[in-house]
């Protein structure tokens, strides 16, 4: 079989391409190289395919998950798409708890994979989805659920330790000096950072957070005002860049027009943070993560109330 033929969609995750940014980096010295790692090349269209795949594979291996179980987790969308896709391929039912203001394209994608959505109160944000998932689990008397809990599951950062980090070292020939990514579940920064500290110890690990509790950088978490993920360790990154919504959005727009990269808001924040890190360097190899494509971000026109019951889209 050719290397281009895979046995399952699970085998299509990772090995995403990097592209050197040439437009938005104007003014930087030639020897300061900024690369965007394009995670929308994953089969589910986002970086979350990596964590979801690892959590599912580890649970299948040790028996926590099997075809007679139902996978349930709370998600802001992209992990939900990934769970729904892999569960479809594996013949496993998936129930996903997410705020009802998650974008329509994400709802439709998840429905297309045959998964069910449980809507939580849009005003409660993603922490409300976490709490509703806990409530569904507490009320369950069937024992049918497998709850990966992406915020606490060490397989989430492990996915990045095993794949994202080594890919970056390989694709930069070990020259990477800075790694920049947004903090959401924090799995990308924690896991990639762990790999880089081993394989490219000079590299600085930079996490990006919104600069305020109420922000428009979908996918990123303002940790101080949120339920802090159990997998997060402050020592897991060397630096935090605090990002304003407008700055992240402005960079997102520039990436479309100047680089041909239409990406999500968190990617705009990640690239903007990478450029701030690049300022003042005379040389360096900066790799930042573009989590997903920009076609998933359209605010719903109708506000749906939360649903206690499981509902199809």
């Amino acid at each position, binding site marked *: 079989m050719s290397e281009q033929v895979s046995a399952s969609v699970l085998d299509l995750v990772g090995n995403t391409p990097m592209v050197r940014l040439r437009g938005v980096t104007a003014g930087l010295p030639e020897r300061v190289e900024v690369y965007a790692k394009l995670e929308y090349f994953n089969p589910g269209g986002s970086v979350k395919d990596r964590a979801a795949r690892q959590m599912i594979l580890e649970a299948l291996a040790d028996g926590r998950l099997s075809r007679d179980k139902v996978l349930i987790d*709370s998600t*802001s969308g992209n992990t939900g798409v990934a769970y729904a896709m892999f569960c479809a391929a594996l013949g496993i039912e998936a129930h996903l708890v997410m705020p009802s203001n998650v974008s329509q394209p994400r709802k439709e994608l998840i429905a297309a994979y045959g998964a069910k959505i449980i809507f939580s109160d*849009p*005003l409660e944000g993603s922490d409300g989805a976490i709490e509703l998932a806990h409530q569904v689990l507490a009320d369950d008397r069937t024992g049918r659920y497998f709850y990966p809990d992406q915020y606490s599951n060490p397989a989430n950062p492990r996915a990045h330790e095993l794949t994202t980090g080594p890919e970056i070292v390989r694709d930069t020939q070990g020259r990477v000096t800075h790694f920049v990514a947004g903090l959401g579940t924090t799995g990308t920064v924690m896991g990639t950072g762990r790999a880089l500290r081993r394989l490219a110890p000079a590299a600085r690990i930079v996490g990006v957070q919104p600069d305020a509790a109420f922000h428009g950088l979908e996918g990123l978490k303002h940790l101080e005002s949120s339920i802090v993920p159990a997998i997060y360790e402050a020592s897991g990154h060397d630096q935090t860049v605090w990002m304003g919504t407008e700055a992240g959005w402005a960079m997102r727009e520039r990436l479309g027009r100047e680089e041909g990269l239409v990406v999500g808001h968190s990617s705009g924040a990640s690239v903007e943070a990478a450029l701030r890190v690049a300022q003042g360097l005379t040389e360096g190899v900066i790799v930042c993560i573009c989590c997903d494509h920009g076609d998933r971000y359209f605010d719903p026109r109708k*506000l*749906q109330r939360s649903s206690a019951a499981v509902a199809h889209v």
Partner: protein
Amino acid sequence: MAITIRIPTALRKLSGGLDRVPAEAGTVREVIAALGLSHPALAAQLLDEAGNLRSFINLYANEDSIKELNGLDTVLKSGDDLSIVPAIAGG
């Protein structure tokens, strides 16, 4: 018009913990102005330096996005809710 402003969890530190704040107003713009008087720190999160609604803020009059209605000039009637809906954080 008696309007109820629904406050998201992320902003409740600025509303004294309240999830609903009443306002007397006839349009969305007037609701924001009323909020500016009753809860200035909260209103400051919604507006830019020029006093315009920040681009990422999503407001819903009952169930409809004001972007689909008349924006800040959307007319509200007594008993309506105006919800301030946050972006969805990570995961």
